[in-house]
């Protein structure tokens, strides 16, 4: 069985220890069980898309200028999202 030493914030460590022990008991092994579950959950999220993710070198540059043809502010667009959402929902109601 392998072992990994990691460094996390004090607050997260405290919360993690408390949750792990409340769930799996105050004896030895509780932290390892919780850790293994957390790592497995993270891996299942990313392992299938690792190849795609590696194609993005810089995440900030990757999205820069994608909407440069739109002459509105970010806040205006964000508020617009609400209207688009509502419009789509109403349209779907109309077709059903």
């Amino acid at each position, binding site marked *: 069985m392998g072992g990994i030493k990691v460094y996390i914030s004090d607050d997260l460590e405290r919360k993690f220890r408390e949750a792990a022990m409340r769930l799996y008991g105050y004896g030895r092994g509780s932290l390892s069980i919780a850790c293994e579950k957390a790592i497995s959950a993270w891996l299942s999220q*990313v392992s299938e*898309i690792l190849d*795609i*993710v590696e*194609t*993005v070198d*810089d*995440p*900030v540059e*990757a*999205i*820069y*200028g*994608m*909407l*440069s*043809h*739109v002459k*509105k*502010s*970010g*806040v205006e*667009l*964000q508020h*617009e*999202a*609400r209207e*688009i*959402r509502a419009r789509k929902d109403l349209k779907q109601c109309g077709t059903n």
Partner: protein
Amino acid sequence: MKPEKLGREKILSNVVLIDSNIFLEVELAESHADACKRFLGKVRDGLIKSAITDFHIDSIVIVMENYGKGWKDIALFLVSLLRYKGLRIHTMGLSGRIKSTLIMRDYGLDFDDALAVQALKDLSTNVIVSYDEDFDSINWIKRYIPEKLV
């Protein structure tokens, strides 16, 4: 160390919530883009710990789709989020949405903004990085714009 910097470091010592408009400003490449790029660069490098909700990510996608962006650009945006060392995605879930309705009632906010406020509570933080002045009506929330943080 400059006093101004000390204050900035204090703000950024906890997790900050990033609003959709910060990413949208980078996509718009207008006047705020440079500051937003520098701010997100710090998040990318893990110098700033931050979070964005799944709901706010969807809002960005909705806007992108509405302005003609296809699956390839949307995929690129979503994939890029995994490259930020200092960004975590906060899932709101049904209970978070239900609790947000109480924030709508208590603060008179619309649902989208109430979700952000609920996310701040979930994350035990009071700092949001946003250009949206709607949050200024809530006295315990500290809203910062990227220009003040980079």
